[in-house]
């Protein structure tokens, strides 16, 4: 079992989604970009917010939201200050 040391980014691949992905019908290049801030910085989370803020949310919790968007999680890089989700479509 691979146990990354603290602070080292590590990658998790969702093989169930990544294995048979077909993007034949993708056609539109330009993306839509949404950025939502809930606090001025990671060090200034309001009282009552869980430690780690949004990063403390279980990754599975984002799945229903991403279903509405029509994206699926292919893989995730977890790191100390940001988690990067690579998505289908």
């Amino acid at each position: 079992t691979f146990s990354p040391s603290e602070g080292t980014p590590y990658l998790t691949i969702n093989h169930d989604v990544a294995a048979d992905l077909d993007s034949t019908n993708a056609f539109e290049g330009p993306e839509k970009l949404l950025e939502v801030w809930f606090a001025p910085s990671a060090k200034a989370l309001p009282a009552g917010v869980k430690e780690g803020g949004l990063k403390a949310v279980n990754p599975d919790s984002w799945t229903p939201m991403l279903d509405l968007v029509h994206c699926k999680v292919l893989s995730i890089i977890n790191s100390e200050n940001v988690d990067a989700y690579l998505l289908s479509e």
Partner: protein
Amino acid sequence: SSMFVFPHKIILKTCGTTTLLLGLDLMLRIAAAEAGFPYHNVASLDDPKVAATPLRVFYSRKNFLFPQRQRGPHKSWRDEVTFLDSMFENGSAYMVGKMNGDHWYLYITSPTSSLTPPRTPTSSRGVSPSRRSKIPTGIVAPFGGVIENNEDETLEILMTDLDPENAKKFYLDEAAAIAKEKLFAKSEANGDASFDVFSSSGDCDADGQAVLPEALTTEGHALGTVVSEACGLSAVYPTSTYPDARVDAYQFSPCGFSANGVVPAVAGADGAVSKAGHYFTVHVTPEPQCSFASFETNVPARQNGRQTAEVIEQVVNIFRPGRFSVTLFEAKGALATTPGEDADDTRRNWGAAAKQRMERINGYRRVDRIVHDFEDYDLVFRYYERE
């Protein structure tokens, strides 16, 4: 498509006919219900309409190539603004660039709404989405409404009309061929017996040639890594300079490419290390009728002395687009100064040098430069065409 989750903010960037804005309601609910961020739109966390109160919302995109094929609220900019206005107070919508050419749209909420007291919570049960109370933004007491992250700097390069030869790298067949070439070269350098790709299976074809494990030449992540290296993307933030950097790339079938990079630590010119959560992301659609590539990063260019123009040239050289736009969002007061140095002077001097450098991207003519002075951000939009 990509999503970046920080403790205090979330970035979602989606391609194709995705319906990004339809996920916004649930995103705000998760922020309140599962992360514990404050909410002001309903009386109780048990209310299914609960939505965390954002400090600030940005939504942007380039003009679509095929707007008629978009779905939900994305069929037009007007529809998107109507959707966002129905959710948030104090939103402003902008169009930047040539109306009859490549242009870029931005919707931004104002943090000054923190001066507005929150509305009395009302139950939204039984109220249609178009009539329910809007979600206030910017209410972030007790620490004020202004984004204080003075490192915040986002660069986005949107490229169209990619060079067909360069775009070939982002097709699965081409990527698989490169992967095979690299693996065979590596096996020759190491000797077949010592190269674990071959020695682990020991498979040979009828001619006695080693057979590559299929996954290494077809699996999207494996090929994505190959493409990242072959196209030069891995060299934009190389591990020699950023040892903890990690790239996660995927080559889609039959074509298309996405990559996320995380750069945990960025050393500044003064030796100070920033660990604010830096990322970059790349998305490529290589088909000639709609070729497009985007690059976005929040790795601060000024902090490590590396000029934004260098990053732009490096990225543009990967794709050789016919035209591209650059948007640079910078939090005001973002420029670090040494003690005794006047911040405004530093900003002016640096700004003048950077502006000059940005005017000359090798092989391109800068057509437009448009500056927006927002309340706590500066936005500079530039548009270039191949000479």
